[in-house]
């Protein structure tokens, strides 16, 4: 009997061995995206018996995912074939030689179907490096039960806040991301553009301009005037959302994910929140910092063809529709934004599309992480009241110029 069992298992293993093993493709994604795409991955594997797609559930925090990816890439033998990347990583990864140019695989017209704003930040140095799967942009959340229309200028935002605070309707006016981290650069960029300033002008830092000083001065002024709590100096997205969803603030700057959080069952603010773009001075644009997530194929991958198929499937119209319906993710394709079924299910879709059309990019350069580190560190100094806006922005400009010189140019 033992002999029979052995013989049987031998035959079985030969049978398994003879069948060609499916080509393994592994994608690293931040945890929420890995969870949201689980169904899609299952469908893909059913429809593509020749490929075994697996998604590695990375950490929750953006930078922790980057650390994991970079560690594996530096060791030279990355277990991943593709990455879901934040928009700011693209030039750095491309310059390091870690990414596969996609235009040869996807065709030169690959980005044609994207909604305006979603096409930004995927190409660098004349090559296409990633394809956006989920769009993300900074939004101003406002309480529809407390006001008729959202403010459009900084002065209006202050006036509405203070009147609501005086009436005891809210404790705070406006909460945003002021912690010393990337989120502050996103917040600041929107205010900067709203005051008519630029992070880079003609490819060079322009952070001691009148507008740049006024923008950081305004952020500090919000704290001084009691519109924003001093705790903003350590507020990331979750802390801001926490203050807003308890009904303690009239306005919040955050990403689209907060919409779903605020409208889930049992939320205090369900049906009482509207979204719009950031306030700006008259005649200046209302902008939204773009923060999309896109798929990129690693140049070290041994399964590029299969990885491209997975990329095309996960960013397809059908996949984006499913991701929006089930997880509330913002699509990147124009046709998905205009899908009548989706617009019925998700009434803010047109407003998200408008915000995406107002998207601005953070500087697209391999040394973006250094530039941003200088910026959020110095603007945070202004917010805490340690240094006044003008001298802090002078320091920032000097440090940014020094970085530009020592690296031989920003882009």
């Amino acid at each position, binding site marked *: 009997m033992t002999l029979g069992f052995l013989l049987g298992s031998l035959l079985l293993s030969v049978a398994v061995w003879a069948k060609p093993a499916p080509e393994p493709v592994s994608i690293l994604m931040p945890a929420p995206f890995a969870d949201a795409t689980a169904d899609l991955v299952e469908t893909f594997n059913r429809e593509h018996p020749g490929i075994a797609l697996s998604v590695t559930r990375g950490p929750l925090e953006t*930078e922790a995912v*980057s*650390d994991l990816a*970079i*560690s594996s890439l530096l060791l030279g033998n990355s277990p991943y074939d593709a990455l879901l990347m934040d928009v700011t990583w693209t030039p*750095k990864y491309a*310059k*390091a*030689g870690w990414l596969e140019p996609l235009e040869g695989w996807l065709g030169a017209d690959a980005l044609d179907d994207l909604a305006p704003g979603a096409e930004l930040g995927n190409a660098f140095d004349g090559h296409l490096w990633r394809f956006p799967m989920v769009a993300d942009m900074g939004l101003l959340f406002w309480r529809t039960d407390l006001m008729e229309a959202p403010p459009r200028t900084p002065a209006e935002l202050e006036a509405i806040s203070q009147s609501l605070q005086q009436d005891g309707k809210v404790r705070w006016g406006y909460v945003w991301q002021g*912690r*010393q*981290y990337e989120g502050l650069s996103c917040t600041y960029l929107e205010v900067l553009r709203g005051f008519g300033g630029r992070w880079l002008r003609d490819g060079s830092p322009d952070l001691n301009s009148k507008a740049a000083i006024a923008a950081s001065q305004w952020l500090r002024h919000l704290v001084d005037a009691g519109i924003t*709590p*001093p*705790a*903003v*100096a*350590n507020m990331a997205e979750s*802390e801001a959302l*926490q*203050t807003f969803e*308890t009904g303690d603030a009239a306005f919040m700057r955050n990403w689209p994910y907060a919409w779903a959080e605020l409208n889930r069952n049992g939320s205090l603010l369900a049906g009482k929140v509207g979204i719009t773009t950031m306030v700006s001075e008259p005649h200046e644009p209302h902008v939204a910092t773009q923060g999309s997530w896109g798929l990129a194929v690693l140049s070290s991958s041994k399964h590029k063809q299969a990885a491209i198929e997975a990329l095309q499937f996960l960013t397809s119209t059908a996949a984006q529709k499913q991701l929006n319906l089930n997880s509330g993710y913002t699509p990147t394709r124009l046709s998905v934004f205009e899908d009548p079924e989706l617009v019925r299910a998700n009434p803010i879709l047109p407003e998200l599309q408008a915000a995406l059309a107002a998207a601005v990019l953070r500087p697209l350069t*391999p*040394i973006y*992480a*250094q530039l941003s*580190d200088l910026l959020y*560190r110095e603007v*945070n*100094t202004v*917010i*805490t009241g*340690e*240094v006044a806006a003008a001298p802090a922005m002078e320091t920032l400009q000097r440090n940014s110029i020094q970085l530009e010189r*020592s*690296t*031989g140019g920003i882009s």
Partner: protein
Amino acid sequence: MLRWRQQLWLLLPAMGLLSLVFLVPIAHYLWLSTQSQTVLTELRPVPAGAAQWIRLWNDSRFWQDAWQTLRFAGLSVTTEMVLGLAIALLLNEPLRGRSSLRMISLLPWALPTTVMALGWRWIFNDPYGPINQALSWIGVTPIPFLANPAITWITTVWADTWKTTPFVALLLLAGLQNIPRDLYEAAQLEGASAWQSLRRITIPLLTPYLLIALVFRLAQALGVFDLVQVLTGGGPAGSTESLALYAYLNAMRFLDFGYSATVMLGAFAGLLLFCGALAVLWWWIGGRQDLAGGQR
């Protein structure tokens, strides 16, 4: 009797292992600090001479972080040693439920630092965290534990003290249990007060353990990274950034490996100087005490 030659042979494997683990990376870092290896050189090392070291010397952020790291390590290790000794003395007493008390007091040490830091970030939240909630009940305005440069570094010391005091207490408790009971009985018979027993018996016999705890804690505190990264991200206004965090930023975020290695080596050189100064101080105090003892 072993000849010195035999002793040397027997020492070789351990020395080989140590140099593999310590000397090789340091040598590699030394080489790296003479190179420019960044994302802009496409991660290929390009000889840079002394440029990285000149940059380090002129980098006010490096010096600021060095001071902040020292400040953090100094206050947290001092507090941990004092508290750890007090807790060890308490746990060494024949109390009821002593073993479960010992277990409980170790819990903070068993918690991963990241989890602990997330916990403190919530506890110190302004204004929803439990501490500020409690303060608001008694009518005190919320304290910006994590948003004020003058306060936040103390918050990081507090969180570190909470986590690592049990480690110090455990080491010292082991030392206390090695002190023979009859020494205390003899001292008591001679009419020594509790304070005198502590000063003349406990502390001197505990010195090797105190030293071990001090060395371990200093090494860890001077390399503090995860606690700060999660609790404050180095903020507000850069006031809690440590050297390890700065080196990490340079390597993992900026992909500037040459400079990251230089920062690490700069910190290492500072650490050697610091330990050297401590040793000299130790020797000087020790020498003076011997003198004082001789005169008595």
